[in-house]
């Protein structure tokens, strides 16, 4: 081939490979051709409210295609696509009972009444004048884990669908104890009945003792106003307790001597136990952990990997997380990133070299009170198989010889063939 022919080829846009071959063994550049383009042009301008990169648009909440309505139900935080411990506000899981209300902060009022000396009404500005507290707390739906319940196990399970009904934020607000003191609690009062400003006028019962301990009337999430989906402009944050009691769009708190036994603390958010009893007021979230990398539907190669995951407990600080690389036969201690607050999610990590052999990996967490996660068998020895809430059994991931990661949970002996049907019954399922 002469030089002229070569030029012709190039002008026709012939493959770079041909060029390399022809020009005497020059290796193809290791640098992507357009990797330096941004050095040569002006970027975009200043903008008043930032957006993430256009290349990150697939990091989104998971909304099941089987939902009957998007005005009620839940969507999931994409756990395996996030790092650190703070959930970006736009990716905090959602759970609504009558859609997201559009509350104008100028019209916002919170009224505390019932067994109080002085019924009081607060504007948003009033609430912001009180001494404030900022803490990092997880919020978890009691139905989290329901997708991990199925028997036989769901082979398309991801970390998102297994445990994505948990999110972790920095919350700022006024301690509810301050507002209650302002109104003056009457002798004999035991309960608070907080009510939301949504179409469901959502209500729950909350013991006064917990409210005086650490409950926040929050107006900020990760430094800015709470997102509408999370309760704008004001919500309750009830540290360590199930998400459903942390009433969003808070408009009213009635102080009483009895609980209300509302629909969402009787027909939902009650637990069916293995002895057939139904437990009420199962408020505290038991310890949980999940490996987010490698996790369901991911693909890995041989060599070094930093195994990563999340752990949290409503009983207190996470003290220890262990990982197993051999299907639960042996356990190794993972390292923990320091957590700022006791009821925050913590990030755990474990340095690991994968040798290419098929294996099952799992994690389990302990909190400062000594609570840990059950195996699936242990969980179902205590809870009934049609129970919808508080599933916190160890999640396993199977890594195939090809590096593909899938659900590693076992098929449970003696369970109904289609246990997955329970997924239709509550917030943690997908239909």
């Amino acid at each position, binding site marked *: 081939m002469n030089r002229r022919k070569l030029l012709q080829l190039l002008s026709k846009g012939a493959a770079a490979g041909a060029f390399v071959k022809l020009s005497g063994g020059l290796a193809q550049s290791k640098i992507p051709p357009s990797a330096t383009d941004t050095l040569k042009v002006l970027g975009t301008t200043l903008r008043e409210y930032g957006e993430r990169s256009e290349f990150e648009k697939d990091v989104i909440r998971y909304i099941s295609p089987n939902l*009957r309505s998007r*005005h*009620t139900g839940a969507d999931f935080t994409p756990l395996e696509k996030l790092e650190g411990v703070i959930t970006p506000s736009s990716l905090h899981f959602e759970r609504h*009972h*009558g859609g997201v209300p559009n509350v104008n902060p100028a019209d916002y009022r919170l*009224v505390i*009444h019932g067994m109080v000396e*002085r*019924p*009081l*009404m*607060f504007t948003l500005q*009033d609430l912001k*004048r*009180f001494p404030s507290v900022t803490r990092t707390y997880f919020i978890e739906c009691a139905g989290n884990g329901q997708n991990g319940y199925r028997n036989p196990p769901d082979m398309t399970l991801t970390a998102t669908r297994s445990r994505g009904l948990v999110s972790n934020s920095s919350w700022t607000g006024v301690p509810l104890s*301050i*507002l209650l*003191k*302002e*109104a003056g609690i009457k002798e004999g009062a*035991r309960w608070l*009945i907080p*009510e939301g400003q949504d*179409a*469901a*006028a959502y*209500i729950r019962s909350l*013991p006064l*003792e917990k409210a005086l301990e650490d409950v926040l009337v929050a107006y900020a999430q990760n430094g800015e106003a709470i997102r509408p989906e999370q309760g704008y402009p004001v919500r309750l944050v009830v540290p360590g307790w199930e998400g459903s009691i942390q009433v969003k769009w808070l408009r009213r708190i*009635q102080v*009483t001597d*009895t*609980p*209300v*036994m*509302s*629909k969402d603390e*009787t*027909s939902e958010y009650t*637990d*069916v136990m*293995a*002895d*057939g*009893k*139904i*437990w*009420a*007021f*199962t*408020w*505290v979230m038991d310890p949980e952990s999940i490996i987010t990398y490698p996790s369901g539907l991911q693909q890995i190669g041989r060599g070094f990997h930093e195994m990563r995951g999340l752990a949290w407990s409503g009983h207190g600080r996470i003290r220890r997380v262990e990982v197993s690389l051999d299907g639960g036969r042996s356990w190794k201690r993972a390292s923990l990133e320091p957590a700022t607050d006791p009821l925050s999610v913590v990030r755990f990590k474990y340095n690991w070299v994968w040798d290419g052999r098929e294996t099952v990996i799992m994690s389990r967490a302990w909190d400062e009170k000594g609570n840990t996660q059950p195996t699936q068998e242990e969980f179902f020895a205590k809870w*009934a*198989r*049609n*129970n919808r809430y508080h599933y916190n059994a160890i999640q396993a991931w199977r890594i195939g010889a090809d590096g593909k990661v899938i659900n590693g949970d076992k098929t449970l002996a003696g369970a109904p063939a289609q246990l997955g*049907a*329970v997924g*239709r*019954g509550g917030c943690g399922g997908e239909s």
Partner: protein
Amino acid sequence: MRRKWFYLALLALALSALVLAQGRYQIGTPLNEKEVQEWNIRPSILANGVGLPPGQGTVDEGAQVYATHCASCHGTTGEGGAFTRLVSEPFPITKEVDAVDFAIGNYWQYATTLFDYTRRAMPFATPGTLSDNEVYAVVAYILYQNGVIDESEPMNAKTLPKVQMPARALLELDPTTQKRFPWLKLP
């Protein structure tokens, strides 16, 4: 001039001491009972019946209300449709019953909850549009469909709190909760 600032500072200190002595910040607008009720447009119905309004409704009247406002989502007789079942067997549930079949007659533990929830949150797309009499009536109809009350029994502030739900016998307090709040009793 300097002395004036000194006295002002002293006054400010005294005022803040007063506020802190009371343990209050003097923020918020006091409301009288009438003003509270103006805000309380979805009053909570407690399990003992406190909060139930005057009025009543019968099973027959409830059938009409149900057909008009509820059947399109919950099925002609409460068997479920696009949305939740309201009527299902067995009474009460067992640990073998699929959670999708948890309904009012076999899972709900307090009849008052049915009034509270229906008035506060139903019909789903137009909450708060039923009158108190209509709510009593549709509650009566649903309880009747579930075999919990007789056809002739009207529901009102007196009769509804007395209705015994079959699943109440299954309800217990979470032992962890009981340990932490020893005074707590389920109604």
